[in-house]
């Protein structure tokens, strides 16, 4: 960093600007509507087109570490499904402690939407061996999940009516912060032709663009931005839309910082020559 620039703008001034932007955006709670991009609509349109009463599979493959980005996504999709009177089946391939997390989010969301366990949604316990589990589900659902999370037999759960194997679900959404999304594409879509959508963290969104490009997945919800877009599509203001104003303010602050940095750089160079 050129020396005179360092004297002009010491490092902690940049931190101070970021801190002020953060606190200021916290104080003004503004809801933002974020127009859905085609990538997020790829998931929204598919679920929206399902007739009432049809089942939707959600694989909630994230653990407490990446809850900040993934929980709003799961809540927005659940709200959309229950508003369309769809039956939701939630399972997980990620890790033992991702099902208790999913159960908490689903029961909280169900309470706000009046969804009843058993009729509007069913929970399945964690199953290890991502692709192997999906391949087995493709053969027969009951072989992998004879009973649901609380031990009731599959045949007795109304939400599971008519589900004998994976392809009985017209649509499956994998919300993952781990690479089980690849297993859903390779084992679910490639092998059984299951319609798959992916929800993932902002960092790994770039990994799944090739699948979009080759039509192996119908759509992609990427990070907090994707969740906020889905929330505005479903017109269900949630956690992601609430955080969006802060993200906007900080991102604009950084872009301004970059611009100012460049201006100072060229001024310094011009003054030297």
């Amino acid at each position: 960093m050129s020396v005179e620039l360092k004297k002009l703008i010491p490092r902690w001034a940049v931190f101070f600007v970021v801190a002020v932007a953060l606190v200021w955006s916290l104080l003004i709670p503004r809801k933002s509507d974020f127009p859905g991009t085609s990538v997020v609509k790829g998931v929204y349109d598919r679920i929206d087109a399902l007739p009432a009463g049809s089942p939707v599979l959600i694989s909630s493959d994230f653990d407490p570490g990446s809850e900040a980005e993934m929980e709003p996504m799961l809540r927005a999709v659940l709200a959309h499904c229950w508003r369309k009177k769809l039956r939701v089946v939630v399972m997980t391939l990620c890790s033992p402690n991702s099902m208790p997390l999913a159960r908490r989010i689903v029961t909280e969301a169900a309470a706000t939407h009046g969804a009843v366990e058993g009729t509007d949604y069913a929970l399945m316990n964690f199953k290890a061996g991502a692709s192997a589990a999906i391949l087995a589900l493709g053969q027969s659902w009951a072989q992998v999940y004879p009973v649901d999370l609380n031990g009731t037999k599959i045949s007795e759960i109304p939400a599971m009516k008519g589900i004998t194997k994976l392809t009985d679900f017209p649509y499956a959404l994998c919300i993952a912060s781990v690479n089980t999304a690849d297993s859903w594409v390779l084992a679910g879509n490639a092998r059984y032709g299951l319609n798959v959508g992916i929800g993932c963290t902002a960092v790994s969104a770039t990994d799944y663009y090739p699948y979009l490009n080759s039509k192996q997945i119908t759509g992609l919800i990427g990070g907090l931005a994707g969740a906020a877009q889905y929330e505005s599509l479903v017109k269900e203001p949630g956690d992601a839309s609430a955080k969006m104003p802060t993200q906007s303010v900080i991102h604009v602050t950084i872009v301004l910082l970059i611009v100012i940095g460049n201006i100072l750089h060229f001024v310094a160079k011009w003054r030297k020559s």
Partner: protein
Amino acid sequence: MIHLKRTVPLAIAFLSGIILMLQYFIPHPASETVLQYSQDWLTTIAYVAMLLGVGSLLQSHSLKIRRQVPGWGYSAVALITFGLTVLAGFHGKEDGPGGPLNWIYENLLNQMSATMFSILGFFIASAAFRAFRARSLESTLLLLAAVIIMLGQVPVGAHLPVIPEAAAWILAVQTTAAKRAIMFGVALGSIATALRVIFGIERAYLGGE
């Protein structure tokens, strides 16, 4: 004696390398058990090796305390908290770590690691301010791509005319191409290094005589 110090380790590296490489091609249950057991072996070795780490930590910090190096007080803090944490952990129930250890995890360890992680937010801003300068064509493209993607992800940017389409194109094309090519290079480099280690061409890790 020289064989024990050099030839035997090279033979061990060669054998374990070849066995693990062939395991990928052999579906026989024997090779499955080799893979499954060897992964458990690694965690056991890592645990026993942790005693080496504890030894080094105790040695370096107690050296600072004995020599009264300025700031030795902080080394004392490190050793004391290490001892307290171990005591808190083992005093609990027979089968699992005690309640106090979870308390330490929740209120101390978790908070500090979350804070260090969140400091990244500040550093992303200061690194962007310091490094994104339009000095050359490359750094200008670096700067533009970062700005376009950052704006493309927030509602403010989504309303701007060309930003969302540019962001989508960059993510779909540049990312796929550059990432794939880098992975080709990295894969070839790591396979070359692995082969050099297995066939004993690379023996720096064996150290001196």
